């Protein structure tokens, strides 16, 4: 797969946008997932994940082609997520009334999730709980944990993506695990 990606990147550098479309298709789910677990919001995750792909495209010439493209796009996405978390001030609340309406809040604007069978409800609630606990981790532990356990990357790759020494990555994962242990102990 990496060889295909390398070939597409060469075409891309020559200015062929369609070559990039294939690359986006290959990595979109992983990048979206990373952003979703980091940010905990689908709309924000989509926004940031798309932004990551656009930045990767614009800066493709600075990409070292001896490295993995996946590591590079993960790094861009992670940094964008961390920026977003730091800047984040809630600019709207779902239960705030929509201006010009009476008693209509943003909840009613957000389309309801498609109906799911009752059986799934319990595991769904658990998943939401886990997602909530991940979102509560300090961002430096969160990125390391998400890359390790959700993207299933090796410690070396994580150290490359986060641009941190291996030892620091290990420490962050250890602390992240301990924090999650505390938070999820009674679930």
């Amino acid at each position, binding site marked *: 797969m990496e060889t295909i990606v390398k070939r597409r990147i060469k075409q891309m550098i*020559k*200015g*062929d*946008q*369609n070559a*990039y*479309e294939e690359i*986006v*298709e290959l990595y*979109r*789910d992983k*990048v*979206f*997932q990373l952003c*979703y*677990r980091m940010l905990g919001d*689908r709309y924000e995750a*989509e926004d940031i*994940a*798309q932004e990551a*792909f*656009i930045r990767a*495209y*614009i800066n493709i010439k600075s990409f070292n082609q001896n490295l993995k493209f996946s590591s590079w796009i993960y790094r861009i996405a992670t940094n964008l997520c961390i920026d977003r978390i730091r800047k984040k001030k809630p600019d709207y609340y779902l239960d705030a009334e929509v201006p010009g309406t009476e008693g209509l809040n943003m909840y009613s604007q957000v389309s309801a999730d498609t109906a799911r069978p009752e059986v799934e409800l319990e595991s769904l609630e*658990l*998943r939401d709980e*886990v*997602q909530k*606990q*991940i979102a509560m981790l300090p961002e430096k532990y969160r990125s390391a*944990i998400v890359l390790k*356990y*959700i993207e299933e990357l090796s*410690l070396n790759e994580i150290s490359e993506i986060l641009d941190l020494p291996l030892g620091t990555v*290990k420490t962050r*994962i*250890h602390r992240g*695990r*301990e924090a*999650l*242990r505390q*938070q*999820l*102990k009674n*679930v």
Partner: protein
Amino acid sequence: MSCPDRIVDYMHDYLDEEITESNKQELKQHLQACPDCEQHFRELEKAIAFVQSTSHIKAPDGFTAGVMAKLPQEKKRLKMGRWFKRHPLLSAASLFLMLMTGSIFSTWNEDQEFSVSKQPNLVVENGTVTVPEGEVVKGDVVVRNGKLNIEGQVQGDVTVINGEKYLASAGQVTGEIEEVNEVFEWIWYHIKEAASNAASLFEGEEKDQSLQ
């Protein structure tokens, strides 16, 4: 109960799959002996299992299209090159059309010079062609980029391209009179001419066949 700090470190080394064999043995023995540490370890494993269990989610529909739409414009040259590669027939057709229009316009421009069909009794003077009074001109008269003054009789069609025609009261034309001034009319005239030529060609063939 106070357990050595290294036991928790060993747990993490174990979870990172980076534990040495001797440390692993020590950890194992300690966990069997110490319920607190054993519980700690179970909780860590449980937390990891929970995180891993969060189902893998997919990017929303239209994600890729959204990215592609927001990319900066690529070089035109590449876009065109790709289009031509994808539509070989259309490229051939458009190339043909381009050359055709080119040649038509260049013929139009070449035709800016004055010319007239050759009939012995036509009088040509300063870009004006005159069919003299009392004369009978046989055959079609064609004038390009000039004036035509008909005082006598023309036995045939009269065509004036990019010019003016004056028919005196005494003048007479037995065939059709046509004036062509705009480029498109001119093109249309050529097409009609080509069509009638082709038709006469077929008619000629038919005649030949009927003779045989």
